[in-house]
């Protein structure tokens, strides 16, 4: 037993040659979020508050595909989505199609806490945000030059691109063998458990580059990108369509329950439901274990447990 926390900043085809100016800010972001989360857990905050806090940090960081720094729709707009779930009560909240709310995860939390519903979207979600007095800004606040460039390239290539670290090369990309050349990254998430076994998960994203206006991914779908119950809390990232079809987050918990698998075994089992190159997930169990798995080139991630272990990684070996 003991507390544990894991954070991700997206799984995808993160090239090993990622230049320092793209790698370092993300590592720093993960480090800061981990520290924020650890401090909150040590101060005995409820995991629900911890995951919301950490995801807000990630949303505010323009280097990740959530909040500021969200990738753009085919119309050049931002449509953010987020989801939060409490393991013990299984209460949850989700939002989609949010374009002016600074922290979509906090809006999702309010849907959970202040409405009889679980999921609000588009105009209704925006109206609710205003009713609740949440901080809203012009949509331009979220748009970064990097993402404008990504959209331009994706439209030129006429493909849907998840990756936002690697602009498409004009010549044939080296990774063309992987999943028809679509490099994938996106979404931020956090899972946490305290030393009483209370679990929570939170996920937030701008979606995929050049997505159709109105496209909803796995993040706000309970059981797909986000799930928590009394056994574990899970947050997934990657190709939304594959994660939805594989009900990934739910399945981690399901095989723990129905097949008696450990957290790590369950995470591996669930990942097998998604084709290579498509996804990653982080998970914590009620007993304080952590699992971080991905079948893409890399996944920006970090974790820490009460016994003093901590890790920040992108590819297979921890950086620190």
């Amino acid at each position, binding site marked *: 037993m003991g507390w544990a926390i894991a954070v991700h900043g997206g799984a995808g085809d993160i090239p090993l040659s990622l230049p320092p100016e793209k790698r370092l800010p993300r590592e720093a972001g993960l480090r800061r979020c981990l520290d924020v989360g650890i401090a909150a857990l040590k101060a005995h905050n409820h995991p629900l508050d911890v995951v919301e806090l950490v995801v807000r940090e990630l949303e505010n960081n323009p280097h990740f595909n959530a909040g500021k720094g969200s990738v753009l729709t085919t119309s050049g707009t931002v449509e953010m989505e987020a989801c939060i779930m409490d393991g013990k009560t*299984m*209460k*949850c909240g*989700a939002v*989609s*199609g949010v374009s002016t709310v600074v922290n979509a995860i906090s809006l999702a939390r309010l849907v959970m806490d202040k*409405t*009889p*519903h*679980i*999921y*609000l*979207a*588009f*105009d*209704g*979600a925006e*109206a*609710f945000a205003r009713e609740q007095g949440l901080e809203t800004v012009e949509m331009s606040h979220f748009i970064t030059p990097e993402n404008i460039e990504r959209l331009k390239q994706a439209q030129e290539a006429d493909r*849907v691109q998840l990756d936002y670290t690697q602009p498409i090369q004009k010549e044939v990309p080296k990774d063309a063998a992987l999943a028809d050349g679509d490099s994938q990254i996106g979404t931020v998430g956090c899972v946490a458990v305290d030393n009483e076994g209370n679990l929570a998960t939170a996920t937030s994203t701008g979606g995929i580059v050049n*997505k*159709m*206006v*109105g*496209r*909803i*991914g796995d993040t706000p*779908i*309970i*059981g*797909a990108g986000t*799930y928590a119950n009394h056994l574990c809390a899970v947050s997934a990232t990657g190709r*939304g*369509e594959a994660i*939805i*079809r*594989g*009900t990934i987050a*739910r*399945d981690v918990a*399901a*095989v723990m329950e*129905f*097949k008696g698998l450990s957290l790590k075994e369950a995470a591996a089992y669930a990942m097998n439901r998604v084709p290579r190159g498509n996804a990653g997930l982080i998970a914590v169990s009620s007993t304080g274990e952590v699992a971080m798995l991905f079948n893409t080139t890399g996944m920006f991630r970090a974790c820490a447990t009460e016994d003093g272990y901590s890790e920040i990684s992108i590819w297979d070996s921890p950086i620190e």
Partner: protein
Amino acid sequence: MEASIMDGPKRRCGAVSGLTTVKNPISLARLVMDKTPHSYLGFAGAEEFARKQGVELVDNEYFITEDNVGMLKLAKEANSILFDYRIPTLTTCGGSAAMENQLQMNGLPISLYAPETVGCVVVDKQGHCAAATSTGGLMNKMTGRIGDSPLIGSGTYACDLVAVSCTGEGEAIIRSTLAREVAAVMEYKGLNLHEAVDYVIKTRLDEGKAGLIAVSKNGEVACGFNTTGMFRGCATEDGFMEVGVW
């Protein structure tokens, strides 16, 4: 309006939410599955897709019935979201207190009018399963509220083994990922269809009220509900046919 459809063998799926002019949301969900790289489109983006696909569009008034207008008025006055499934019938215990609290319209219990989700599950001779669900959602819901019907794993699910469509309190169905649950206990616990449906209805809903229909790849059909009733019908190739309410 919202809807979703799922094809068992490859678990392909399509879903839509926030539709107001598309005559058949389920067909738009099908088009999302077949004609886009996505699984789920909502609101203005979905309506725009519908226009581009040339599907039949009508004025929003087309969908609105007098009964529903009446019920919305009652719901607003009672400041509630109407769940027909919770309204006790005359025969349940609770006696006169329950009767007094019963919402009525035109002198009859509101449960007789309350609108519900629709769905269909099918399996063919090859064991190929599919599921589809469609709804207008909850009476007096907040604008922009999404329920279980368009959510894969909650209101709709289909895989190699089974196809499931759910109806009832959307929030309870989402929390329990009800449709996926039926398939998961079959897959991971080895339960057969009827055992799976019973197990899930009995143990996964807690305070929530819901029902579901399911078919298995072996041609079995099952339904379960913890509500007073569920409007349903089923048929199998060997000639069995049933329509039921309670």
